[in-house]
């Protein structure tokens, strides 16, 4: 896969006949490096991307070697070991009115059983994650990557230091 094809895949612009080939074909171990290249070329910040964490979010290593979660707008969510949601802005749809802003009254959940939590980037106000959970449910820590093991054992090379 070349860089342009991967860029189209990321943007959802790959025509179906090409996407089908990608789906049915073998996975190229080189995909990750190409992926990082494409993503790094798209962000305005200088830090090295270690791992894409989600739409808009990356684990990066800064000049001092710290691994932090960063939005493509530049907003920093703090160390990767801490749930990035703890540095987000939150809207909880926990009433009929708030749920019915986006769902028909017959299509929504009952807020006494479940609420919707919307986690935004305070820098660009992109919606980064939605949780559907009962009131009082601990915030989900979706993914805690073991970056050292990933680079060493899966990719066979050390983690970039900066």
């Amino acid at each position, binding site marked *: 896969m070349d860089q342009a094809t991967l860029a189209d895949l990321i943007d959802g612009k790959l025509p179906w006949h090409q996407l089908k080939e990608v789906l049915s074909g073998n996975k190229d171990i080189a*995909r990750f490096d190409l*992926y990082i290249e494409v993503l790094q070329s798209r962000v305005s910040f200088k830090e090295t991307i270690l791992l894409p964490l989600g739409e808009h979010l990356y684990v990066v290593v800064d000049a001092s070697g710290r691994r932090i979660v960063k939005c493509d707008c530049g907003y920093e969510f703090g160390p990767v070991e801490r749930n990035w949601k703890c540095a987000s802005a939150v809207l909880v749809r926990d009433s009929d009115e708030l749920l019915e802003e*986006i769902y028909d009254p017959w299509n929504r959940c009952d807020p006494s059983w479940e609420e919707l939590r919307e986690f935004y980037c305070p820098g660009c106000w992109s919606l980064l994650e939605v949780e559907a959970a009962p*009131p*009082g449910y601990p915030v989900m820590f979706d993914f805690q990557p*073991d970056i050292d*093991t*990933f680079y060493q054992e899966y990719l066979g090379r050390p983690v970039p230091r900066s």
Partner: protein
Amino acid sequence: MTTISTDLSQSPPAGNSPSLIEKMALSKRQYEETGHYKGIDQLRLKQTDHFRYERVWAELRGALVSARETALHISASPIVRNIGELCFALYTPEGDSVVVSTGIITHVHTMSEGIKYMISQAYEDSPGIKEGDIFCNNDPTLGNVHTTDVHTIIPLFYEGELIGWAGGVAHQVDIGAGTPGHDPVASANRYEDGFYVTCEKVGSNHQLHKDWQIRAGLSTRTPVYWALDEKCRIAGCYIVKEALDRVIASEGIDYVRQFMDEAVEEGRQIFLARIKERLVPGIYETASFFDAPYADKAWHPEARIDYLMHAPLTLTIGAGGQFHMSMDGASAPVPMPFNASEGSMQGALWVLLTQTLIYDGKVNDGAYLAAGHNFPAGTWCNAQDHSLAYGSPWAFLIPSFTGLFRLLSRGYFARGFREEIVTGYGFTGDPLQGGGFLADGKTYFPVSNFELCAVGLGARGTMDGLDAAYAMWNPEADMGDAEVWETIESGLLYLSRRYKPDTAGYGRYRGGSGWEALRYVHGVQALQLYSFREGRVFHGGAGLYGGYPNSADYKVRVHNTNMAQLAAARKPYPLGEADPSDSELERLVQGEFLRTNEGMMFPEAFGDGDLFLSLFSGGPGYGDPLERDPQSVARDVLGHVYLPETAERAFGVVVRTSGDEMVVDEAATKTARENLRLRRSARAVSYEEFYARERELITTGQLSSPVRQMYQQSMHLSPSWAAKFKQFWNLPDTFSL
């Protein structure tokens, strides 16, 4: 509480060759000691002659697929024939699957559990395992999912020695439960689940026992369909047997024995390699929920509760590609038919893995061996109490596994394999069921619709989810022909089948759309109907990366309508309810409307002219809906996936009709999206404020009864989950709800 024994320490039968118990124990020990299936660390057959090895695989795989396709045309009930609710598998002597067919392959592993149960209970001694024997099982406590999935299993012999097993599963129209149908809602214990067959020998010398045929025929409401499906399963098993005999004749018995073992080990190795190829090591977490509002419905006093199912899911991927998933913290079993056995959860785990990580290669129990799991004993997902009801475990099982797709997708995202991402799936629910008598008062007809086998798939990482074309338990989703369903459900006609707007979860890529079917009761003397879906909560969880959950269900039916008068006057009649808040049903029909925002409906009497609206789920979304291409949203509105007002309020896209087209108002869309972004910044609060508010709900007792009870159960059943909960909310060790 009692549990059926699975003690492996029973003494083996006397004889020179190892007993099946000994073989199974040896296989288990070899795996534990070496980490390889039967200690096989080298795939010698594959290495020696790759083409021969793959040719044998292809021949057996083809035979299994052919068995399914052929058998359902030999003899099968409409539910099996119409949508292929059937699968077959070939097993090692110890009961590990080697090769499988297409179809409802979630049952490949459940049959494995049944075989292992028979071995562990020394069936070799009694009732004996001989060539020509036929066994039947549908007991969830031995590994099955629910009683309506019936297994037929035959031992395969070569020159007097058992060399494997063939098994087939078919889903029944009716299983003789307390209420007609295949997924009851009203049963509260085993004794209402219907006809139980607990690994019984039902045939010898290649013939079914007469007494068995009589008993089975009297134990369901649809004996003809039962007999047709049993013949179907037997026919398929014998097609598998003949295929194995052919391979033995061409390759030799020694080769085939070794091949079966190596194929399982290869399946295991492929799974581990896939993990390292496609995921990132670490810890992945999510949770799913499902509502059972029974307080005002249940027939049994003990079931009159509002229950919230809790399925926390933690996936740990290790340095060597090790896979371990855990549902530690799951809530308690219920006096409802939604309890699940460990075997059914294992089967569900396996069937999902075959759709995402190991959809090619050697799909067999090798992957099951490599997929470590913890379904905690004493919870709903491993109840270990055979007296409970297991009639419809799908109600909890299906939502609980949406989390697995979400978690794996986070790994795919991180590696750049965006094309493999899927955010979850809709609930294959609203199984309209019941039964009744036609106007002659004599002709019984079942209502056991399975068009739910085609709901919305979650959005992908590169495209929208499939519309009305996915079922998590059957990778060959198919809603079946309406005409065939009408043939069976002869007092219940179709007025329509069409997309249901607003069922697809919002996102940059939307979930697959759900759909609706309007049914009309006609020519009956009596009829009862019931169904279930989620309603108080969204199905499973949300989507991914800003994607929203698909819509929750509601129920609407209309009794004592004026449909006959409308027809006589040739006036328009409804085709559904595209917008429940501006109901086509209510505009066009007069009658007694029953409408609830719950998905659960207990058995209810229906009569001629009544209407029932079946509602099938959409899938969850992916990404921020404000990033969805406005032209795609316009196509959604034109295609009845979303209503125009939903396009504006959820996506910030303003559309208007222009002839036959739906066009985007670019300027209004720009303004709408800017306003929605501004609204986000104006109303969102800091995480600290959010945390304080949520914590206060707990500490001041503001939780509703089902939510509070869910936390109480999870904390009681899992000290580790309790500790995690208290730590997160900074509560003292002594805290209780």
